[in-house]
Structures are given as C-alpha cells and as structure tokens.
C-alpha cells in the first residue's frame, strides 16, 4: 500500500500498485513521468484493444481508462496523498485517430482542488505532444470529505 500521509506520496510506487491488477493491469498502463500537479502514464498498442479492424485504430475505451487513471492520479500528486475519490464525469474530445502501432501517452493535470471536488484536464498523444489525439476534462469527488 502506498503511503497515505500528506507529502509522502510516491507516484511511481502508487502507479505500480494501481496497475498491479484489474483493468489498469489488463490494458498494460505504466508510469511515464509526473510533476507537482500532473501525471503521465502510457499504454502500448495492442491488437486486442482495437476498435475498428478495417483501420487497426485503437478503441477509444482504453484511452478513456488511461485518462481516467492519469487525471485521478494527478489529484493524488497534487494532494501529496492517496485518498479515496470517485469520478463524477469525464469528457473526451477525440481530435484524431491514434496511429496504429504507436504507444499512447496520457497526461492528466489537477488544476483546481477543493475539499470535496477536484477539477482535472488532460491530453493524450501518440509521440508528439504538439499533435494530440485527445483532450479531456472532468471532475472527481473526494469520498472521504466530511
């Protein structure tokens, strides 16, 4: 279990924990980088995650999972603690199809944190951050807030 005391949150260890089983493990999510209020994760291209066999393009579902995870972990990074929270809503704009064969990097940012609600945004790209494949915006609810 990752450390739950403010200021001692370890994003690398936390990623290892949340990707060790379940759906995050199934899509093969892994740690890339993090900052004060952001987190970057990635998934590799896989044929079983394809949404359209005629084009070989990844389905949008794995990208939502990646962004849900990157934005929710960005909240932990900003808080400096792993706290229970639930996604309230998440909007994803699919700017273009991901290129078949390429890994997808998802960057989540927590740009506003209140006691009960966290506001997040993020983007996903497949090699060039200047040419994103998706933009996301969402909110999370702190489930431990009084």
């Amino acid at each position: 279990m990752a450390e739950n005391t403010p200021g001692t949150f370890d994003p690398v260890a936390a990623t290892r924990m949340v990707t060790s089983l379940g759906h995050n493990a199934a899509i093969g999510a892994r740690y890339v980088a993090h900052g004060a209020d952001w987190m970057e994760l990635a998934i590799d291209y896989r044929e079983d995650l394809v949404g359209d066999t005629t084009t070989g393009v990844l389905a949008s579902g794995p990208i939502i999972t990646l962004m849900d995870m990157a934005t929710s972990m960005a909240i932990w990074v900003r808080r400096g603690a792993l706290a229970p929270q639930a996604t309230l809503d998440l909007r994803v704009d699919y700017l273009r199809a991901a290129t078949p064969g390429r890994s997808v990097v998802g960057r989540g940012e927590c740009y506003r944190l209140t006691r009960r609600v966290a506001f997040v945004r993020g983007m996903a790209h497949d090699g060039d951050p200047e040419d994103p494949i998706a933009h996301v915006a969402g909110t999370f609810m702190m489930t431990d807030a009084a």
Partner: protein
Amino acid sequence: MAQPPKLPPYARFLGISAEAGEDGPLFHLPFAVSVMGRPHFLHGGAIAGLLEIAALGTVLERLRDEPGVSIKPINVTVDYMRGGRERETFAAATILRLGTRIANVEAFAWQEDRDKLIASARMTLMVRRPKATGEG
C-alpha cells in the same frame, strides 16, 4: 428480429456480448478482475468502454443496410452516478438524431435495476457514408 451487432476486438477484450432487443441491442458486461478498478468495483474506464460500445453498436445496427458506411467518435461525456459492483452490467443506447454526417447518441449502464443507472454517456459521432450529400 434484428441480429446482434458485430463487436470489435476491444469489446471482446472487455468480455462484452450483445443481443438483439425490441428497441435496439442490449449489451452485457460480466464482472471479471480484468474490468475491476478499486477492489470490488468496476473500473470507470471499463464502464465508459461499455457505454461507447453500446452507442457505436446501436448506430451501426441502425445503419446495417447501408453498405460502406462507417462511424467514428468525435467526443463523449460520461457521467458516473453509482459505483459498479461485482456483478453483471447492462447497457443500451438511444439514438437522439441520426443525420447524414452526425449522430447524437445517449447510452445508459445499469446493474440489477434498469431504473438505477450506474452511468450514462452522451456521444457525438461522425457518420461517413460512401456518397454523402447534404448537411448533417
């Protein structure tokens, strides 16, 4: 009775199956560790995946008789209303409008009670017809 829609590899990866229903296809997602988020709960990403498959599959089913037509997502907004528990999840979608170029779809996910939604999604899709004319 209509045939159930053909599902992409990602839907099979999630474990989704579809059956034809009176008002469009009904989608099932059995609980498995591979769709679990925090312990004992369905992952929000897997729920979003199910909702998207329901939206896309329902539109494709409606367009079944139009050869060469393809659709792709422009955006999706998912609202999470209840935690998904360790049981089977169902999903269905309503086409609000199917135009020449754009489809507006709403998808719903529930578990034991259809009146207790665990999540919903609103999706805007681009429809590509081989010889599209007019405004979508």
